[in-house]
């Protein structure tokens, strides 16, 4: 058996090499380069990068545009998470009940998740269109003309309108994982609750929901990672971050800084800070939502 293990160990290098090589070159080294470049005053197409210490970080935190983008990113993440929570919970519970046409409902509700963010963003941009968009048309039809705003052009609604479009697509992921979580709960537990006289609502509140805690933790962390790096939705729906930067997020600002103003050092500092934020928030969420594991 030992010889057998030895002979298998000959696979290690040839099997690991391709993945390690590609991943290191195009995944890991770029990470190191980004962090490294954030301490430089890199400003041209050449690779000359004079050391600049922590000044980029001081500069970005004195930049009102960056603070605005950071705030918008936070609002995006928070509003998206809040808006997704209840509908996703309800739909995933409903989809695990014995109902007719379950497969069809499930398909239609999850399908947007499979679409390109660009298609979804264009779709919503057209739905929101103040001239021919059906949303405003519908509002006028039911006599709410004053509500028919230019959703993406109004500084008050632009960011929220993007959140709604994103939630519409991404709730599929929550529904997918939550309904998988509900299906994993053993039937005996539900049965025991019912025998004890718990109704549908009580069973859900006292049994199903607490047992889904682990899935929620996971969804929150996945959403943090995803929401803080939101880019395409904003880039497609409101060019240049919207009126007065009303929907500007960190990624759109950092690409503008890098590729329009050639402030590569600044852009790398923004990227590094965002990476740090993603890491810190994921770790903190993981730490503070830990509960004694419910065994079932």
């Amino acid at each position, binding site marked *: 058996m030992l010889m057998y293990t030895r002979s298998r160990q000959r696979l290690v290098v040839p099997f690991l090499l391709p993945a390690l090589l590609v991943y290191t*070159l195009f995944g890991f080294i770029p990470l190191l380069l980004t962090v490294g470049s954030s301490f430089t005053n890199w400003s041209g197409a050449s690779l000359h990068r004079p050391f600049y210490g922590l000044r980029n970080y001081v500069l970005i935190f004195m930049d009102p545009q960056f603070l605005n983008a950071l705030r918008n990113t936070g609002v995006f993440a928070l509003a998206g998470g809040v808006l997704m929570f209840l509908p996703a919970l309800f739909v995933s519970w409903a989809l695990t009940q014995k109902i007719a046409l379950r497969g069809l409902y499930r398909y239609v509700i999850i*399908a*947007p998740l499979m679409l390109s963010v660009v298609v979804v963003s264009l779709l919503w941009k057209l739905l929101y269109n103040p001239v021919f968009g059906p949303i405003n048309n519908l509002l006028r039809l039911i006599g709410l003309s004053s509500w028919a705003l230019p959703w993406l052009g109004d500084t008050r609604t632009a960011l929220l309108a993007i959140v709604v479009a994103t939630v519409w697509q991404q709730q599929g992921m929550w529904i997918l994982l939550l309904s998988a979580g509900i299906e994993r709960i053993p039937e005996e537990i539900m049965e025991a609750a019912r025998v004890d006289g718990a109704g549908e609502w009580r069973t859900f509140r006292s049994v199903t929901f607490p047992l889904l805690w682990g899935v929620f933790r996971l969804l929150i962390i996945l959403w943090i990672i995803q929401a803080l790096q939101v880019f395409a939705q904003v880039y497609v729906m409101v060019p240049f971050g919207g009126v007065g930067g009303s929907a500007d997020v960190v990624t759109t600002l950092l690409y503008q800084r890098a590729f329009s103003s050639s402030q590569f050092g600044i852009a790398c500092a923004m990227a590094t800070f965002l990476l740090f934020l993603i890491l810190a928030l994921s770790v903190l969420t993981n730490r503070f939502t830990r509960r004694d594991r419910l065994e079932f």
Partner: protein
Amino acid sequence: MRNLGGTKRRLRKFSWSRGAIYLLLSLFCLSTVAAFAWVFMISLKTTPEFLSTSPWSLPQHPHFENYRVAWQRAKIGTYFFNSILVATVGACGSVMVSALAAYVIARVPFRANGAVGNFFLVGYMVPVMLTIIPLFLMLADLSNRTGLRGFSSGMAPLLALYVATGIPFNTFVLRGFYESLPSQMEEAAAVDGASPMRTFFQIMLPLSWSGLVSTFLINFLSLWNEFFLALLFLTKETATLPLGLFYMAQRAEYTAQWTDLFAGMLITTVPVLILFALLQDQVTKGMTEGAVKG
């Protein structure tokens, strides 16, 4: 009698919640279906008709011309094949290299199993869009020096990045898959004198086929939909569908040729919807496993 009353009450309560379920689920689905029905109807209108009629009106004469215009003049046809090429090659490449690595990490004990596995997992938390700037500029510099544009634009760097960005998810899911396979097969093959290489390709690889397929599908879908890296590395001539649509939408703002854009959106969307309808279980299974184990 009391018992009967209890049953009756429970039944009524039951049907109330049932009614609410159907109502809310139907509303949910209806809004999505209505949005796509709107896109479909407009894709069959002419631009003047679209701008002058109600969004809810049916097209007077179904105008399939829009699809031809989108496919040929707006180059959606070219983008379509670019997307198929990029998504297939990228997903195959990433799943292949990941399967090899995942097998070794899961089943061959060596000194750094855990460390290598964790190294790959770093990529899970590090979005490529936040780390690409220096690499992009270095590749551009390399092209300038060598005079070879292929280093910083076109399919080659894009595919390399697509393969790399898939590795964290793929090694993770496939690792779980290989760990779950029984070890007797490998041992039996070894007793029969098969080399480890042969054991992998003839026994373990076929056994993990379903895992490979669902990983491939998830990679394919995400590359089919990928926008950001395409925006950096591709041009209007070499674009994939999401990028091509983005440029088409930009053009529509000036030319007001909206109806072609709607046709283009459907051409992009329908294959994905069909693929998902046919392979829903494999796709969702892979996504759930990847996330839950993570």
